[in-house]
């Protein structure tokens, strides 16, 4: 543990983490710390914002930066105020699918539409983990959860496609079984001007896996690898062929006017100089 290179980025007094054995959250925290390290970002220039749920605990309180642990579903809205106030800092939201795409889905859409310079790492484990494994808006069709004991009859939200369509500058999706691509995309999200989303498909063997014949973390990771389809290949497949598959890759990477810069342009235009 003491030899772990990323330890310097963590609040060591609050370790060990609350994550369950095999949770993908640790992978995300590790890769995020590596991204910060490789980019040479001073943690004093980072503000981490999260909501409620297991994935909200990935940055908070563990990552040693300014950390705002907010209410359920709202971290992106809180982060909006922070980014306006601190336009020169990296404002990063790390939270889960239930938090950001379920209860907080509207804030996700509108932050993408505004294209505000926030990096969002949305950890999608298909389930409401912290509350005990209830169905989420991302749960695959047919999957068993504590509130879909006969199988899920709803269709999951395609988060990355939705956020790309809403107007984000950068959107990528990887699984925890693609750590190097994930690292590359998180680095890109941090440095991209505008709204950036990295959707991380992450394993929850305890609440999701066990009820869906994927009892351990390795089982789940193998399932991710087997089911993943690169975006380029997916484009040539029919919706039927893509049913139940995880499409991975960069969904969008473009330059688009950023919200806080525009806000400051207005001020520069009308600000009254008293002298």
């Amino acid at each position, binding site marked *: 543990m003491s030899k772990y290179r990323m330890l310097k980025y963590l*609040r060591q*007094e*609050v370790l060990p983490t609350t994550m369950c054995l095999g949770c993908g959250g640790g992978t995300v925290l590790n890769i995020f710390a590596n991204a910060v390290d490789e980019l040479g970002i001073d*943690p*004093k*220039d980072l*503000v981490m*914002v999260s909501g409620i749920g297991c994935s909200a605990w990935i940055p*908070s*309180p563990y990552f*040693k*930066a*300014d*950390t*705002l*642990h*907010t*209410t359920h579903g*709202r971290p992106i*809205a*809180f*982060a*909006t*105020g*922070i980014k*306006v*106030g*601190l336009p020169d*800092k990296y404002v990063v939201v790390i939270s889960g699918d239930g938090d950001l795409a379920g209860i907080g889905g*509207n*804030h996700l*859409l*509108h932050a993408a539409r505004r294209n505000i310079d926030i990096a969002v790492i949305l950890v999608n484990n298909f389930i409401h983990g912290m509350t005990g494994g209830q169905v989420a808006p991302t749960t695959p069709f047919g999957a068993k959860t504590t509130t879909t004991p006969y199988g899920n009859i709803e269709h999951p939200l395609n988060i990355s496609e939705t956020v790309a369509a809403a107007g984000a500058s950068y959107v990528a999706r990887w699984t925890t079984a693609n750590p190097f691509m994930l690292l590359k995309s998180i680095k890109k999200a941090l440095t991209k001007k505008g709204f950036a989303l990295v959707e991380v498909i992450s394993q929850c063997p305890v609440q999701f896996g066990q009820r869906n014949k994927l009892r351990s973390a390795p089982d789940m990771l193998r399932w991710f690898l087997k089911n993943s389809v690169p975006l380029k290949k997916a484009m040539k497949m029919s919706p039927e062929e893509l049913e139940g598959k995880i499409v991975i890759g960069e969904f969008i990477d473009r330059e688009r006017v950023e919200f806080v810069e525009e*806000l400051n342009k*207005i*001020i520069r*235009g*009308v*600000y*009254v*100089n*008293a*002298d």
Partner: protein
Amino acid sequence: MNRSVLRKLYPKGNYFMQGDEAIAYGAIFAGCKFYAGYPITPASEIAETMARELPKVGGYYVQMEDEIGSIAAIIGASWTGLKSMTATSGPGFSLMQENIGYAIMTETPIVVVDVQRSGPSTGQATKGAQGDFFQARWGTHGDHPAIAISPSSVEECFWTTIDAFNLSEKFRMPIIILADGIIGHMREQIRIPDPEEVEVIERRLPQNEEEAKLPFGGDLIPPMPIFGRGYFTHVTGSTHKETGMRDVYTPSVHDKLVRRLHEKIEKHKKEIVKWEEKFTDDAEILVVSWGVSAKPSLCAVLRARSEGIKAGFFRLKTVHPFPSERISKLSKKVRAIIVPEMNLGQLIIEVQRFVNDDVRLIGVNKIGGVPITSEEVYNAIKEVV
């Protein structure tokens, strides 16, 4: 706030404007630099004025996707050091309640304006009311303190908003302004002062890293280690230790935190609670009112006195905490207390808690969107003469 900028933009003198606009100008004079909101009648004019004026003083207007996002954004902005405000009406105020609790728990200075309208639900969307008296006190869940202040004229909208910012900065908590649709939309003459005449209080910031280590303890009102200064501040709505670190398992940690949140208000009640009273020295009948209903109440008291009736007038400026000691003391000298308000009896419940049983307590309650008239209050006074 750069006083010369204010002087140039808004030279001192008399203006004719709506209550909503006066709230916006009050916010600007108090140093507000961030406003997030969502349109709603009868509060939209506050947003419109802020959108137009804030950039002129170097402030930011953000229209959010809903009221939940609006209050979330102002809390976030406040943690970067910007004085922040949102404004709404009943339905939006209901949506904001969860994050009002978050601001209380995380000791975040913000100002939330509720331009009350007729409810429940969508009710009479364009009509004023005073039905949120208790929502301003108990709207969010759990034990919590609350400060809510209520203007009863357009000019007071300006000064109340400055008070709200000062209280929020001083006590590190959300302050509720309970305006109403009638005052919000009413136009009156108001005097814009020279910025020199406005006392502006700024939050206490840590002077060094040592002071930043206890953002939620140490002092009754701890300094606020805002983000971006390298303090590695941790803020959570969960029960936390003085350092900010979550601890939901130790009963004494929760007890100490929540009692301190109450104590910072209780210990400063004298300084926080403001009211106005007239003719109370010899009053036998006391009219107690607030907000829009205070004007007709005072008119009725003046008319009664011109006829030799010993009527007195008491207006709450601070509705929470309630001026319990003063009401209790005054009630010992009067036969009857009349409480006019545009609801079915909310302030009267609070009054009742602090008066003796032998005092006749009469509500003048009107709903439907039309303000109470002085005639109606006068008739109530005549009934108890």
